[in-house]
């Protein structure tokens, strides 16, 4: 914590991004109650405006020195700012993806308000340096999403909500129990004090508390052993919401996990790094193995996100070398946000094509979208020069530097295995379609399959961004390792 002053008074200007989102959510709710249905786009515009303000405030905040505010319970530093950016931009993209399907729907304003609140909760998770703030962030990031998963009120969505909610409640309970145990043994909820007091506590109780607390974060990240909800929720939700829960909550949860590992757990006499490494190994392997057998694109992407979290956990396991691991984690998260949302944008653009085989012949009809999908999928494999390649490169480097050669080799083996299912999807894009999907796809007035224009534009833009971020990785990395 050197170089940071623990402000006892809360400097509200440091919280402009959070405040902007909260105010926008409240305003959106109020406005949504009064607006007629065909004018609910105002709420969408308001949400995007709020995000824009928050993004600008975040960029301004990046120029300032890191500080721990609110009596050390919330830390505004490069990690939080990078997480803020990724979360805000990700949320804006999801709003864009949803614009076609949600426009003038019955509950459009509620949709956007819930989305904003979930984003706010995720940001709080990323910034929390106090167990209670962390718990609050967890709840705020989870509860709106339960509602959003079942937003369409269809059979799959309802089932997904139920599973998501039950798992979330269980792991939320674990998280709260962990908070209690750590408070009892450490005598505080602030990370900086816990790092001093926890090593003196009874190791078994401290370890239990750490594990229970981590379990809650693993749930938000969709990591083993709290990953069971991921495929069902992603399969059951509408594509924009699936894109959101597959991407955004992980940012907050993983940054929080890194923060708590370095700031609170670092001195505890346990091999915490090994624990995280084992979780990472299990996550990437199980995610990949399960993805092999998926026939629908959403479940395939769901398991792919689980394996990606495994690679990200590998970086967190290297938290002992923060100068290498932290920029790597933040960069990987940014790269992952762009690339994963790019793949989901394609899914959102062709929402009626559920199976991998339904994408047969996409290249002939939608060349640019197909190219973008290829870029995003190969990007998730880690093919240069996409952004995730640089992320993976830094991840491997960080883990090797931390002496976890076995984990790096496992990650490499998993990467090879992942090629198998990503390529299967890529391959069908080029096959000729014998029975066109038009039969099942609702046709628009021109007779062409109805697709979401906004999603298509976003898909292509994200594919391009994924390459550009990879090519100009240096300034980004410089920014991310500027402080700390």
């Amino acid at each position, binding site marked *: 914590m050197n170089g940071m002053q623990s402000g006892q008074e809360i400097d509200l200007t440091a919280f402009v991004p959070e405040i902007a989102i909260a105010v926008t959510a409240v305003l959106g709710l109020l406005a949504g109650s009064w607006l007629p249905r065909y004018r609910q786009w105002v709420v969408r515009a308001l949400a995007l405006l709020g995000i824009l303000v928050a993004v600008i405030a975040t960029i301004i905040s990046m120029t300032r020195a890191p500080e721990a505010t609110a009596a050390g319970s919330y830390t505004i530093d490069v990690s939080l700012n990078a997480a803020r950016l990724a979360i805000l931009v990700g949320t804006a993209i999801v709003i864009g993806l949803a614009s076609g399907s949600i426009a003038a729907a019955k509950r459009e304003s509620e949709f956007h308000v819930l989305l904003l609140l979930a984003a706010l909760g995720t940001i709080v998770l990323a910034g929390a340096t106090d167990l209670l703030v962390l718990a609050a962030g967890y709840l705020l990031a989870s509860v709106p999403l339960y509602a959003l998963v079942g937003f369409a009120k269809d059979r799959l969505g309802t089932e997904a909500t139920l599973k998501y909610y039950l798992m979330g409640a269980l792991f939320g309970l674990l998280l709260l129990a962990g908070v209690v145990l750590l408070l009892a043994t450490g005598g505080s909820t602030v990370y900086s004090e816990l790092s001093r007091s926890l090593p003196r506590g009874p190791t078994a109780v401290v370890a239990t508390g750490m594990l229970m607390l981590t379990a809650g974060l693993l749930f938000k990240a969709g990591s083993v052993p709290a990953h069971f909800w991921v495929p069902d929720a992603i399969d059951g939700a509408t594509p924009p919401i699936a894109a959101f829960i597959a991407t955004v909550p992980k940012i907050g949860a993983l940054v929080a996990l890194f923060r708590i590992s370095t700031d609170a757990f670092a001195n505890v006499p346990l091999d915490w790094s090994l624990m995280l490494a084992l979780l990472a190994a299990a996550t990437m392997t199980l995610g990949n193995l399960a993805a092999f057998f998926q026939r629908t694109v959403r479940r395939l992407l769901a398991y792919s996100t689980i394996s990606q979290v495994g690679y990200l956990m590998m970086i967190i396991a290297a938290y002992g070398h923060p100068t290498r691991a932290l*920029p790597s984690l933040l960069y990987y998260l940014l790269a992952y946000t762009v690339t994963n949302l790019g793949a989901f944008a394609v899914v959102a653009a062709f929402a009626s094509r559920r199976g991998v085989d339904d994408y047969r012949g996409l290249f002939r009809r939608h060349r640019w979208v197909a190219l973008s999908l290829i870029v995003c999928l*190969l990007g998730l494999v880690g*093919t*240069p*020069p996409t952004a995730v*390649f*640089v992320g993976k*490169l*830094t991840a*491997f*480097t960080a883990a*090797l*530097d931390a002496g976890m050669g076995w984990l*790096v*080799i496992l990650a*490499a083996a998993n*990467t*090879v295995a992942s*090629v*198998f299912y990503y*390529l299967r999807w890529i*391959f069908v894009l*080029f096959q000729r379609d014998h029975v066109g999907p038009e039969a099942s796809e609702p046709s628009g007035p021109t007779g062409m399959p109805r697709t979401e224009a906004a999603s298509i534009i976003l898909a292509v833009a994200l594919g391009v961004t994924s390459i550009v971020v990879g090519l100009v*990785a*240096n300034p980004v*990395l*410089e920014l991310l*390792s500027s402080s700390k």
Partner: protein
Amino acid sequence: MLSIIVFLPAIVAALLLFVPRKRVRLFPWIWVATSAVDLALIIVAWTGYIVGTGTGFGYEENVRWLPMLGSGYHIAVDGFSLPIVALTGVLFLACAVYSLREQRRTRSWVILFLFLQTVSLGLFVSLDLLVFFVFFDLSIVAMYFIIAGWGHPGAARAALQFFLYTFVGSLALLLGFIGLYLASTPHTFDMVQLVHQDPLKGDPVVAGIILFAISLGLAVKTPTVPFHTWLPPAHTEAPTAGSVILAGILLKMGTYGFVRIAMPILPQAWRDYALVFVIVGVVSVLYGALVALAQTNLKRMIAYTSVNHMGYIILGLGAAGLATGSNVQASALAVSGAVTQMVSHGLLTGALFLLAGVLYARGGTYDIGAYGGLAKTVPVFTGLMAVAVFGSLGLPGFSGFIAEFQIFTGSLGSAPVPTALSVIGIVITAALLLRMFQRIFLGAGQRSHDEAPPAPQASMKDVFSREFFAVAPLLALSVVIGILPAFLLHVIDPAARALVALVGG
């Protein structure tokens, strides 16, 4: 200058994406023009290199790309890369000419090949491990699409196998590179700095592990026994131009990686494990030749002779690591022969695969037994094939002889027994190539009087002009190198000496 050579094809490819579909008939010609311009630029660069210093790096460009990760866009040519770059230019032009009549999804075909040309050229000029890796990985992706998209019926499976195998190799390579990066101080991916630092001089264990990882990656790509199993299916199922580039260029990425990365950066480890490479080389030579002998499918047979030819390269490079005392000078000859072999194999095997494609276009099968007595009906084709066969079996007067002679002369002193064993490989290769030639072209015409319907040989047309102009220059170049090797060896020699000075004990 060098960046223009590298990225010209990719820029043209990107522009082609915007050309409307109805102009698709122009695409093959645009490809030919682009490759011709690129080759002309390469020749200009070659001339400039000789006129200039003639040694060391020429046309160096070093742009800060990822200084945070100790990596930069560092490219240049020297005596090792220049011949391979020129080979790349020649082979892609040959494929462009050969593909002038390509009807299936012409746009994607042309764009993919142009992209692959940039990737190949970029790999051979890169002096930074990360840049090298980027191109290495992209070559796999591009070749995957070429095999899967335009191959024969079993292509999907073969392409996937190719991707998975070489991708495993590329990840091993990446881990090795990261190991080098972490070992160096200051941390860097720059090859020149790494050679200068020799970061693992005092740590033979780590050096051995890293050499293993890097060699695994390169050996899969080369391929050597026992990592060659992806090669025959990939070649058999690939379209003709794909096979040519796969054999002529992509395999060289493996062998080139040895002379560019593994040997100079890890000289001590290379010396320690040189015997392993010599043995792998000899086994590849013999195994490749023997398995090729058993093939009835023309393309599979050529694929296995590639394993055999790559084996000589590994043998020569391994022997350079074994050389001590007076043999060190001789081992420069072995390295020079290895590089010459890369060029020679590219030209001759490229020609053989093109001719196999010509045969398939007429007979519809690669089965050697389905043909017979073609010499009467298609004399020009027969002549071309005869030249390619004699070149490939290492007859004096062709590039293959120059290469193999240098390798054997240079290796004999430091590794006498393995070298003697691998000479047997030459004999077997000669036997199998001649037998193939005899079965297809000589004899009494239709030999197959069993149930299989013979190929329509009476009506078989001789080579078209585009086929002739794709194949003949490759063979002519091989002859030129065979008769006047000096222009090539003068370029390679200084680089080979410099490498031996690093590696030689």
